[in-house]
């Protein structure tokens, strides 16, 4: 019997869309039950959002003050207790899931299938390795629980329209005190979230400075887009790390991705290969980004980008 437990990602108020993507992946596995576990301090609102996702059988909540905000070392033993009876435990391949799920897997005594990009069978999956230069088919052992993270860029979120039952779960787990949350500093921004934005405008090293990056923000705001960047731009200090797109940053799949002054190293391309339309603006016509771009424009970005912003206004 295939029963899947999906670990919800949320910030205490809103469910992260990565959860509905995990549900979509779980649906591909062909489970008889897909339950969503919501752990937090006070989770009624988040649980109600999870209950709306199509395909969800039950939402299982577990509230305790230590669960807000989420800390992997504290959540993991509780998830292990909740995982009893499930054949699969899924979480998103976001910073939250990447931190948490391997800890859960190890406590359950299994390896993890990281970054599922497609489902071939109840225990067979495809995942990217070597920065997406190779795709490997993997088979998890049938006699133990499958713990996996879902590559969120590979899945469309399962839609709302459900009203699954919400139940409080009895969880008997000892939680550690050796790990304490201190603070979360978010880049205060009214712009859309990079992970979920339909449009993303990204800038690279060619921008030259934090000040000059301003033209990227202006174009993004004109389009209602999130702002991304290449590793080079982050390393140079033009933009904060959470904007980085690529193998070691965020993997995204917006409808429109505009890469500006980004040469297109394979490590960057792997973060955008599921984008709907890729636009590249670069002064070097030989830049590898043009190999994957649907629309390319060779030109000086300092002339082209303001002109584009103006043309769209």
């Amino acid at each position, binding site marked *: 019997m295939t029963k899947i437990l999906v670990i919800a990602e949320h910030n205490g108020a809103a469910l992260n869309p990565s959860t509905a993507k995990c549900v979509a992946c779980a649906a591909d596995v062909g489970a008889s039950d897909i339950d969503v576990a919501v752990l937090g301090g006070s989770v009624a609102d988040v649980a109600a959002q999870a209950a709306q996702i199509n395909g969800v059988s039950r939402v299982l909540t577990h509230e305790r003050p230590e669960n807000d905000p989420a800390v992997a070392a504290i959540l993991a033993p509780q998830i292990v207790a909740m995982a009893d009876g499930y054949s699969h435990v899924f979480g998103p391949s976001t910073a939250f899931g990447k931190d948490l799920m391997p800890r859960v897997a190890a406590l359950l005594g299994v390896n993890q299938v990281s970054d599922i990009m497609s489902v071939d069978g109840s225990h067979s999956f495809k995942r990217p390795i070597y920065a997406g230069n190779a795709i490997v088919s993997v088979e998890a052992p049938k006699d133990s629980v499958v713990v996996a993270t879902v590559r969120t860029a590979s899945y469309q979120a399962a839609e709302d329209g459900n009203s699954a039952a919400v139940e409080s779960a009895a969880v008997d787990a000892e939680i550690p005190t*050796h790990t304490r949350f*201190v603070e979360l500093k978010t880049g205060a921004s009214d712009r859309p979230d990079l992970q979920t934005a339909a449009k993303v405008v990204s800038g690279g090293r060619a921008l030259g400075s934090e000040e000059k990056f301003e033209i990227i923000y202006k174009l993004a705001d004109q389009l209602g887009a999130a702002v991304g960047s290449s590793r080079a731009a982050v390393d140079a200090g033009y933009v904060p790390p959470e904007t980085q797109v690529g193998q070691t940053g965020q993997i995204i799949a917006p409808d429109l991705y505009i890469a500006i002054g980004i040469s297109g190293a394979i490590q960057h391309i792997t973060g955008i290969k599921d984008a709907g339309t890729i636009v590249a603006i670069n002064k070097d016509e030989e830049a590898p980004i043009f190999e994957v771009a649907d629309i390319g424009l060779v030109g000086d970005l300092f002339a082209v980008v303001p002109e584009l912003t103006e043309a769209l206004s």
Partner: protein
Amino acid sequence: MEKIVVGLKRVVDYNVRVQVKSDGSGVETDGVKMSINPFDEIALEEALRIKERGEANEVIVVSIGASDAQQQLRTGLAMGADRAILVETDTATDALTVARIFKAIVDRESADLVILGKQAIDDDNSQTGQMLAAIWDRPQATFASEIVFDGSVAKVTREVDSGLETLEIDLPAVITVDLRLNEPRYVKLPDIMKAKKKPLDTVSLGELDVSPAPQIRETEFKPPEGRQRGVMVDDVAGLVAALKDKGLV
């Protein structure tokens, strides 16, 4: 603290464009340049800086694999590690088994801190550090961009999707490092000579009494489906027209 253990994984060099073998049995590694996983280099650099600040006494580098991995351990010694341990095995090792091997090393050495890369650039798994922390029943601080010690407590700033999160963890602990933590030093020739005299112990997997974890089998390797090269436009007007044509603006 007394001892820091750092993991160094031998991987295909960052600059190599990896090719899938034509029979789909793996990726081509024959004659390909091998290096220390770049994240592990950052892990070692951080351990060395902690020691240089006087906050630790010894830095031990550990690699798991065939005898070739001695090259990467020698590089680690040349960077400044005090000694090296190679856990020799010819079988490919999965993340949980690697975590169990590290646990055995940590127990043997009574390590206070283990610093690992946040992921290896070959399998891109990002599991080992979290798994080690789990089976050791100790804190984990993954994706670290800043580490500060206050006695036996570490304050670690982590790169998460929404910004920077800070955790306070009690030692012993596992920290996995992100790109922005530091810039690893270059190895100088005299250091390479000195490194040849530093101890490098080889331990067989059998000696460590590690039970292998259930394996996830890799059945077939394929190159990714490529994106097609699209159209080039001459100017902004052409770009706007193309975007409107696709209904994107």
